[in-house]
Each structure stands twice: as structure tokens, then as C-alpha cells.
């Protein structure tokens, strides 16, 4: 996990930037809280206003930590997918993980219209959404794993993932068609993504799952580097392709699945961050890339969240709008410069 020595200074700079972004993110928001009170809240001293302490400790701090987990997790799972499929346009959701989650959530929110009665609405609590999204992701992931153990060709898995995505999108559209406006709105809002809705308990569960995913990703560094040489060559070097593939898919599933469950389908980060990192480090060695992607992903997500909070106003913008505004130009730029891309 120790990055190459030559990158040490770069890493130190990035870590300092990350810390600065973290502090900035916590100190900015709709409500203007003096610096001193922000620090006081964090260290547990008495604050002038009770509501400020609540805002810092129970809202902004979990939100910032969520942003870090989401940014790093999506970045890493995007990197894993790009390497596994040897496709620069793969992202964490190519396996249909987010569409699976969307289907779970759609069945919960919109399906209640079909099941009938307003009692179904009561299921749509915080945990209801998380469980539904997780179940959806796990179901799709399980199918992909099943298929990947039978299919020789990695590209086939990519296509199958996309197909799952199309199927779920179709079911969601049928559900939307029959759903009342109010429930449709809830579903749409879920699709915008949200970082600021996790209590400390939620965050604990979320981070445990994400850390397990991260550890699996770190275990996958060696096979990932071997896979860069192409599948056939990797086989001749004695790499067990199927086993590595399962490990990589499992790591991605845990990361992308838990993120989608807790924060909604966050767009573009998973696709854009690995490319940005490669451009900056001029390497394709995962030993360097993984820690770098973790740091970059966290920074970008914190910055996006700070912007989306529109500091000083009462309003917020959906986080997905901001990530896409940053992510989309990157993707366009990638397509235009594809020949020169380091991949």
C-alpha cells in the first residue's frame, strides 16, 4: 500500500489539500457559524447556540465523512472496472449495480401504488430505502457473479451488465407510469443523490461495509496489475482469472452497492476520477493509483458537496447535478483525446 517513493511529495501535498477541503466543507453551509464555534463544536466545548452544535456535529460532520467514503469508494470501484474490462469508459455501475438499486427503491416507493394503500408509504423510511437499494444491488450483482463464473470472456459480462440495466430501467418506467405524482417525486429525489442524510449509526454501518470493500480492492492490486497485460498473457503468468474477477466484482459490489444504498446513485465520479488520477501520475500501477484515487475522489466529492450546499443561502442543489457538471466535461474531453489517453 506504500506508494512509490518518487510520488511521496505529491502525496503529501494531496493529503494537505484533502484536509483543507474537509475543514472548508465543515465550516461552510447555509448557516453562518463562526470559526471559533465550529472548532468548539468539534472538540465538544460549549457553543453559543445549541442549534450550531447540532448543525456541525449531527449534520455537517457526517455529511463530510459520507462525501469522503462516497468519493473514494466510487473512484476505486471505477478504477477496478476500467482495468477489469480494459475499457476507459467503464464505471462503477457498468455491472448494473445502480440499476439494481434503482429497481429496489422504485419497487418500494412506486410499487406501493400497485400494492395499494397508504400503509405502504410507511415502509419508505430511511432504512427501508437502504435495504431496498442493497437488495436490488445484491440481486443484480449475484446474477452477474453467476454469469461471470460461466462466461470466459470479460466483455460478455460488460454486455450482460448493460442488459440488466436496460431491463431494470424498463420495469422502473412501467412503475413510474402508474405511480401517483407524489411518489414519483420521491423517487426522482432519490435519484438526485444525497450525502446529508446519514445519522451516526447509518454512517457506522456504511463505513464498515465500505472499508471491507476497500480491503478487498487492496488485495486485488496484484491481479489488477497483471490484468493490464491482457487476459491471455495474465493466464500464462499463472493468474487465476476467474478468481481474480470474482474478487474485483465483489469489491466493486460492496463499494458501489453500499454507496448507492446510502447516498443514492451518484453520477460520474467513478468514471472521471481514475482518469484524472492517471493523467496526473502518469502511471498505470495500481499500487500508486488506488491510494491516489482514494484521495482524489474524496477531494472532488468534498468540493462538489461544498458547492452544492450553496453556502450562505437557504437552498441546496442536488449533489448529482454538481458531480455531473464536473464529470461530464471530463468525459467529453476523454472522448475527444482518446488517442492520447494514458490507459
Amino acid at each position: 500500500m506504500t506508494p512509490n517513493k518518487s510520488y511521496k511529495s505529491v502525496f503529501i501535498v494531496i493529503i494537505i489539500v484533502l484536509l483543507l477541503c474537509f475543514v472548508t466543507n465543515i465550516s461552510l453551509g447555509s448557516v453562518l457559524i463562526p470559526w471559533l464555534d465550529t472548532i468548539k463544536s468539534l472538540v465538544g466545548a460549549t457553543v453559543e447556540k445549541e442549534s450550531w452544535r447540532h448543525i456541525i456535529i449531527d449534520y455537517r460532520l457526517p455529511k463530510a465523512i459520507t462525501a469522503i467514503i462516497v468519493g473514494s469508494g466510487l473512484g476505486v470501484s471505477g478504477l477496478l472496472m476500467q482495468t477489469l474490462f480494459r475499457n476507459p469508459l467503464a464505471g462503477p455501475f457498468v455491472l448494473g449495480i445502480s440499476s439494481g438499486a434503482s429497481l429496489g427503491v422504485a419497487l418500494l416507493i412506486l410499487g406501493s401504488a400497485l400494492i395499494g394503500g397508504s400503509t405502504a408509504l410507511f415502509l419508505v423510511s430511511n432504512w427501508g430505502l437502504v435495504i431496498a437499494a442493497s437488495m436490488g444491488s445484491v440481486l443484480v450483482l449475484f446474477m452477474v457473479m453467476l454469469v461471470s463464473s460461466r462466461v470466459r470472456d470479460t466483455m460478455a459480462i460488460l454486455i450482460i451488465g448493460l442488459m440488466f440495466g436496460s431491463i431494470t430501467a424498463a420495469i422502473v418506467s412501467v412503475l413510474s407510469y402508474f405511480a401517483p405524482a407524489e411518489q414519483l417525486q420521491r423517487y426522482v429525489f432519490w435519484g438526485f443523490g444525497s450525502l446529508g442524510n446519514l445519522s451516526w449509526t447509518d454512517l457506522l454501518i456504511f463505513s464498515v461495509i465500505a472499508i471491507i470493500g476497500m480491503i478487498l480492492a487492496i488485495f486485488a492490486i496484484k491481479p489488477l496489475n497483471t490484468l493490464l497485460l491482457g487476459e491471455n498473457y495474465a493466464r500464462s503468468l499463472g493468474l487465476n482469472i476467474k478468481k481474480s474477477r470474482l474478487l474485483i466484482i465483489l469489491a466493486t459490489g460492496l463499494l458501489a452497492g453500499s454507496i448507492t444504498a446510502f447516498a443514492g446513485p451518484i453520477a460520474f465520479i467513478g468514471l472521471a476520477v481514475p482518469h484524472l488520477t492517471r493523467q496526473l501520475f502518469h502511471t498505470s500501477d495500481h499500487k500508486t493509483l488506488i491510494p491516489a484515487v482514494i484521495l482524489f475522489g474524496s477531494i472532488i466529492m468534498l468540493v462538489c458537496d461544498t458547492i452544492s450546499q450553496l453556502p450562505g443561502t437557504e437552498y441546496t442543489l442536488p449533489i448529482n447535478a454538481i458531480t455531473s457538471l464536473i464529470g461530464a466535461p471530463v468525459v467529453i474531453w476523454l472522448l475527444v483525446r482518446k488517442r492520447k489517453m494514458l490507459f
Partner: protein
Amino acid sequence: MKNYIILLLLVASILSCKQEKKVVIPISVEKLEDQKIDYATGFTIQNHKTYKEISITSPWPDAKSTFTYILHPKGSEKPTINGKASFIEVPVDKTVVTSTTDIPMLEYLGLENKLIGFPHCDYISSEKTRTLVDNGTIIELGNNGHLNTELTLELAPELIIGYSATGDIKTYDLLEKTGIPVVMNGSWMEQHPLGRAEWIKFVGAFYNKEQQADSIFKKIEKDYNDAATLANNATTTPTVLSGNMFKDVWHVPGGDSYVAKFLKDANTNYLWAETKKTGSIGLNFESVLEKAQNAQFWIGSGSSTSLEELKGKNNRYTFFEAFKNKTVYSSTLKTGAKGGLMYYELGPMRPDLILKDIIQIAHPELLTDYEPYFFEKLN
């Protein structure tokens, strides 16, 4: 088929029990002044010698065109009119409505028997009309307010009272082409609570029940204004928070909205009364906490049935004083037999009850023997 005949006989026998005077009632047009409309801004009724003219000016947000309906007695010649209008022979009999808000209006006018179809009957809560649904008098015509075109055509009503939230009226246009008159109800666009109730005059016009509609409305208007006057005498003006969160965005009713008007008339200090919006506003959680942490009442907390459930949905609700002091009230807990919300059905017709409910919550000393009708305290 046998059952069908029995059912027909049954219905026929029930109908024949009613002692209907078989007299064609001409339109009362001795006084040719326009119908007085005091609060509603979305419709006008002009009385002419041989017909009535109803104009609908704002059936949905940013509507570009005005709808004109010419109501003339059954069997009489169509009057000649300049401009585009739909002609409807009145009093109409077999009716289809599409919004539950029309159900109490028909009931108050004693016209629930005119109703023959409704899209998504489960939404209907009123027991009187529910009985008609359960015994098959009122036919199911689709779901979620989407009229099923074929079923509606087969039913062939004499009038459809429709509404549109977006201005997409393709289904209605098609029905109108087949000769079924469709009128647009824009009552939900009214921002004054009494404005919505006043649409009973619009509904009544199609059945020649203007006078009845007028007296029903006058009573509601008087009760509302009396309650508002009573609230004005209160010595305190408690602060009020409203709406609820989805994820970390809190949706509060805008300062020009229907809900805000009630809170104002109940002599409370709604914390977002200054915002110039008729819809709801999505606000950042922290700004809401900063502003409303010490609000005395939280009125209109959504569909959660208990404080525990609110907490389960979002732990951050517990930071509010209103939550700690258990002064959280919801209007959407009272449901009909099939889960329809009473507040949405009867509320627009009875703003006086909504206002009294809020006064009873905010100034209990003013209404000592009043039992809230829509609002319930969360425990």
C-alpha cells in the same frame, strides 16, 4: 347476464323510490346580474336571458387559454355565441368527476346520486359516496386520476368534470370529440382557502343549484370569518414550523401558499410567511434548524403517525423543540375506508374546519369545546 338484469331492476327500483318532480326547471334568470364570486379568481358565471356562460381563466399553472362553457336548458336551442365555446344542456344528470375534492361538493348539493364513474375509487373517503362505490353504482374508471378512455366512452356520462395539473388534456379532448362535454375544474389553483370552497357555485351551475350552492358557501364563509376574527383576539402569536424532510432537504409551504394563509388567519407566526411563493420551497436542513429550532408548534408534519416514526425517518427531527415538547400535528392521518385522505377530499370544501383546527391547536383557550376535525397530535 342474469345478475346484470337483477342489478338493473334493483337500481331501477331504488331510483323509482325517489319522488322526483318531473318538471323541467327553467333557468332562473329574472335577475340578469352575474353570479357573485368573492374569493375564487379562476372562474366567472354570467347570466343571460336564455343561458349561463361560465369562463374558466386558470385551469392550470400558466394556462394560455380561457375555457368558455354555455349552459342552456335541456331541449332548448343552442344560443348563438361569438367565439369558441362548449355547449352543455342543463341540468345534467349522469356525471363523472376526476378529483376527490368534487365529491363533497356534490354531496353538499345532494347530488351524489348523479355520480356514475370515478377514476381510482379507492381515493374516495366519504362514507355516503363510498356506499355507492361499494354497491356498484359508481364505476371504476382507471387509476391515479387517469381516465380510461374506453371505459368512460362506454359509460357515456352527460358531463365530465376534469382537471389537469400540467395542461395535458389529450384524454379529455378525445372524449369531447365524441360529444361528452368536459369542463375543467381549477379550484386547486386558488390560493385563498375560501376561494377553493367557492367552486361549489361552479359545480352547482350545471345542476341549476346556484341558490343552494350560494347558501352553503355563505355559511362556510361566515364560519371561517368568525373563526378568523376570534383568532385575532388571541393575546399570543405562537411561532409555527411546517412541512417535512426528504433526505436532507426540508420542504416548507411557501409564504403565499394555501397553508400559509390558514396559519396567518389563525393568528400564528409562520416562520416562512415572508417568502413569496405559492408552492413549497426546498430548504437546506441547517437553515430550517437555525430558524425553527424553537418554534412552538410544528403543524403539518406529513404522513408519519407517531413521533417514533418521525424519528425513525430522520433522527434530526428530534432537535426541534416542537418535537421535544410533543407539539407536532398532522392533518393527513384521517383516512377513508380505502386509505384516501380526508384532508385532501373534504378540506378544500371546509376551510372553516381547517382554520378552527389550527386555532384550537395554537390558541386552545379560544375554542374550549371544539374537537379538531382533520388535525391530530402525534404521540
